[in-house]
């Protein structure tokens, strides 16, 4: 899922200053699961904005709404009336959601209320970790399902850097060395021989380095 975290209230006030009727728009998908922009967070951030506004006299009128998915036009339509009635939209969706709303409402200011952080999983209650860099050319099959592009701080593709201590990363000692994990995993599934294979330089043109990416499925186009 896409993992995000909220901006601070002073940051949001800076963004919203000058607007009166504000719609705080939540998203019911990834950011709900990572407790950043779902119905509950919409309620909390709206309350905090109302408190700030009343305590410091900013004059915000804050309305709340959460739709199923902000990155899908079908669901954005459900927010049409509320968006029309507002002066500005504070989207608590990921970066894709914010842009989907902004592209649909050309004359309406749409602001991001979250910092979209990474693609990851819920590791334990209240802890999310990054697992995928969306590099566009997946190599997980070669590394026992552990991604060296994302989880190795140096993105090493042909073995460890040699600076890990015990099983800890040199760059971030609170993180595991990805290559230690890859070795253990490949040993566990009897595929250690994969490590004898030298990997050629990775194709980065399919990553964001090659510019914004588009996927076109002709079989699904109308």
């Amino acid at each position, binding site marked *: 899922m896409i993992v995000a975290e909220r901006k601070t209230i002073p940051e949001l006030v800076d963004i919203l200053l000058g607007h009166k009727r504000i719609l705080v728009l939540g998203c019911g998908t990834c950011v709900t699961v990572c407790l950043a922009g779902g119905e509950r967070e919409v309620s909390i951030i709206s*309350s*905090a904005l109302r408190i700030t506004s009343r*305590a*410091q006299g900013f004059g915000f009128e804050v309305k709340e709404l959460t739709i199923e998915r902000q990155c899908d036009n079908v669901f954005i339509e459900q927010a049409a009336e509320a968006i029309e009635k507002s002066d500005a939209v504070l989207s608590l969706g990921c970066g894709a959601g914010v842009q989907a709303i902004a592209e649909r409402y050309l004359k309406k200011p749409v602001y991001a209320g979250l910092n979209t952080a990474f693609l990851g999983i819920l590791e334990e209650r209240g802890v999310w970790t990054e697992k995928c860099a969306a590099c566009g050319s997946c190599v997980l099959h070669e590394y026992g399902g552990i991604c060296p592009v994302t989880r190795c701080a140096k993105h090493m593709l042909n073995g460890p850097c040699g600076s890990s201590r015990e099983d800890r990363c040199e760059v971030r000692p609170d993180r595991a060395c990805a290559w230690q994990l890859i070795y253990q995993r490949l040993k566990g599934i009897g595929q250690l021989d994969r490590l004898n294979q030298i990997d050629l330089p990775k194709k980065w043109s399919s990553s964001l380095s090659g510019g914004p990416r588009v996927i076109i499925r002709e079989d699904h186009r109308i």
Partner: protein
Amino acid sequence: MSSNNLEMTVVAFCCHYCAYAAADLAGSMRLQYPSNIRIIRTPCTGRLEVEYFLKAFENGADGVIVAGCEEGSCHFKEGNLIAKRRVNYTRKLLSESGLEMERLRMVNVSAANARLFTDYVNEMIETVRKLGPSPLKQAKRLMQQEIPS
């Protein structure tokens, strides 16, 4: 009691298994504490969400006390520890929002400790008295005054 004190409202979310019983015992023991307190009985402080505390302030509370069981004695094992983390998060949010974080406080009181309960209530009333009325309350009053004109 000064008129300033009389206008203050402190909401106390009290756990059914401890602080609420302590408040009840305080009554039986004829212990005095200010009448500004509004007690809301909750099944467990772990049931309380961040929104509840924020809504209390939005609706004009000058202070909020969350009173749960002593640590290690929660009827639901760890509800009071969950509440503690939520209260801490809300205090940070209040501070970001320009409201003093001291207006919200988590306390732990056993059902037998009525005196401690009244002490905490008196402390909170004193804290709020020093901080002054909530700026939200003043803003609400101004808005209400503006409506007739």
